[in-house]
């Protein structure tokens, strides 16, 4: 039993119902994360990374209705079907969250100290005094200079990097077993990005947490993650250990992503090698392979039915592309 992963998501499907439309931004996705492990989720903007991680915990903005199916098991408990108060119990305490934009994630009219300390009061049953002390500790932990002064400040008085550190400190305040970080560096300066990533990686190791790191930057994945899920248009394209997927990417989309990483040997000023084309707009599930319009390996059969995830040469990697998988069979 102790072998069960901390988080195991299987066949998760999320439908979002809004006044304008109904869309399925997450379509039958599965993955697991073990204690102390880091899973990277990569994919272009709009591929469903945020929804996949936040919708099962009831963290969708107002104005949308969420419909979930499949299973999300966390720490031995099924999350899908839980009531809002039950979910509230898990949020913050067992799972910490870091949002995409640190600029707007903090309450502008409340002191930073309070925003961190209330977590400790709530989840660790601390007195306000003890919670303040804990907040100070946390702010030191995330490497902020002059911590005591920072606690008395308001968010707008801090730079983006500092704010993100505060957000991280807040997420850690409840001593969570799992940390979900949604593009924690996207909104920051390039120089700060590296620092924050190093910090996250370091904290994860030290606190022996599990971490889900959402990003659309392949470069980030290489240094930080153990496993990777490549998302394309609401579905998993490829999944496996980072050292395998990054070294020998199989799915044409993964290859494209890795090719798009700027290389040192690129002549300065050379054209940015992005993927050609744009991802489909989400709506009803796409019948065949969603990547077909942009794929150079596409054959007519690709648009016929949805390609299943199949184990590739290496059994730890699964790929949703029959063309590639058959290539393996032929070889």
């Amino acid at each position, binding site marked *: 039993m102790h072998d069960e992963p901390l988080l195991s998501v*299987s*066949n998760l*499907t999320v*439908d979002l*119902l*809004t*006044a304008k*439309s*109904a869309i*399925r931004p997450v379509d*039958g996705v*599965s993955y697991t994360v073990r204690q102390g492990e880091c899973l990277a989720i990569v994919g272009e903007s709009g591929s469903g990374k945020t929804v996949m991680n936040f919708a099962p915990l009831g963290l969708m*903005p*107002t*104005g949308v*209705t969420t*419909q979930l*199916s499949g299973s999300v098991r966390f720490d031995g408990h099924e999350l899908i079907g839980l009531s809002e108060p039950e979910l509230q119990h898990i949020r913050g305490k067992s799972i910490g969250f870091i949002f995409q934009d640190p600029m707007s994630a903090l309450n502008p009219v409340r002191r930073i100290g309070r925003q961190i300390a209330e977590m400790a009061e709530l989840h660790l049953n601390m007195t306000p005094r003890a919670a303040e002390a804990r907040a100070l500790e946390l702010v030191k932990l995330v490497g902020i200079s002059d911590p005591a002064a920072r606690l008395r400040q308001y968010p707008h008085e801090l730079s983006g990097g500092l704010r993100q550190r505060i957000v991280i400190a807040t997420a850690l305040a409840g001593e969570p077993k799992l940390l979900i970080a949604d593009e924690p560096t996207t909104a920051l300066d390039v120089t700060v990005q590296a620092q924050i990533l190093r910090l996250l990686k370091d904290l994860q190791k030290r606190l022996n947490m599990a971490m889900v790191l959402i990003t659309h930057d392949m470069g980030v994945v290489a240094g930080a993650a153990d496993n990777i899920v490549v998302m394309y248009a609401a*579905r*998993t394209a490829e999944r496996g250990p980072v050292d395998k997927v990054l070294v020998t990417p199989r799915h044409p989309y993964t290859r494209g992503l890795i090719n798009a990483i700027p290389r040192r040997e690129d002549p300065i000023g050379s054209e940015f090698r992005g993927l050609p084309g744009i991802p489909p707009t989400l709506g*009803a*599930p796409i019948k065949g392979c969603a990547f077909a319009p942009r794929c150079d390996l596409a054959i007519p059969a690709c648009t016929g039915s*949805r*390609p*299943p*995830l*199949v184990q590739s040469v290496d059994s730890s990697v*699964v790929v*949703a592309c029959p063309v590639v998988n058959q290539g393996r069979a032929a070889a």
Partner: protein
Amino acid sequence: MNKLKPILAQLNKFPRIALIVIGLFVALGTFAPWLAPQDPSAQNLLTASQGPSVAHWLGTDHLGRDTLSRLILAANTSLVSVGSVLIIAMTIGILMGTIAGYHRGWVDDLLMRVVDVGLSIPSLITALAVIGIVGPGYWTMVLALALAWWPMSGRISRAVAVSIMSKPHIEALRVLGASPWRIYFGHLLPGTIGAVMVYATADAGTAALAVATLSFLGLGIQPPTPEWGQMLVDALPYLESDPRQVILPGLALTAAVIGFNILGEAIALNRVPRPLTRRMLAMRRTEVAGWSKENSDA
């Protein structure tokens, strides 16, 4: 017929109840003289202060006048006065607003400062001050209220005018050498009038309240012309014995104002996303139910 369609589509965006109430108010106000079952000023002290009867559906007031007829006629009084106030106020407001929006610079600063001051003083106080200086009377009331009302439309017209002036096609016209007059009368003014009219309609409720309030205070519409506020104050001394005569005009006025206020609330941009209505939700659910679910992770 085809021209009506866009108008109907436009109207459909507003709450139906508001449109019904406003339509009723306007219809009553316009056709009141033909709709009133009896002469609203015919007195008969023998039948004074009576309850509802076949002859007088809503009873009679302390002078024996038919209350229903007076209530209907009052809609006419209200509609005409409110219309006059708003037309005058909008004319001033649109002129000032478009001039400010066209010229910008110090003209804009000065006019908007005046508008700010005007808006910060309650309209009743402005109107009463004018009446106090000039002396009461129907047209004094209309002008005094217009004076209190124009800053609102002034501010809105300026905002609209500024946004129109910053549109690329105006810039193009300028570059092509169109005269300021053509830009002003051909583009700026018509565009602004359209936008301000909608807001003015929503504001008609408060204007009706102001007319009734001044009449209640004896400084607006004078007896024997029936008007809701004035009917109410007329009946106030008999509140204990005949509350109906106080309550009916009050309710009529409140109903009209509610209609305009619902419209106003619908117009005021709502930036907040709302949860789906139950019907919407059911629709989306059936839509999603048709989508296949397959487990790709065999």
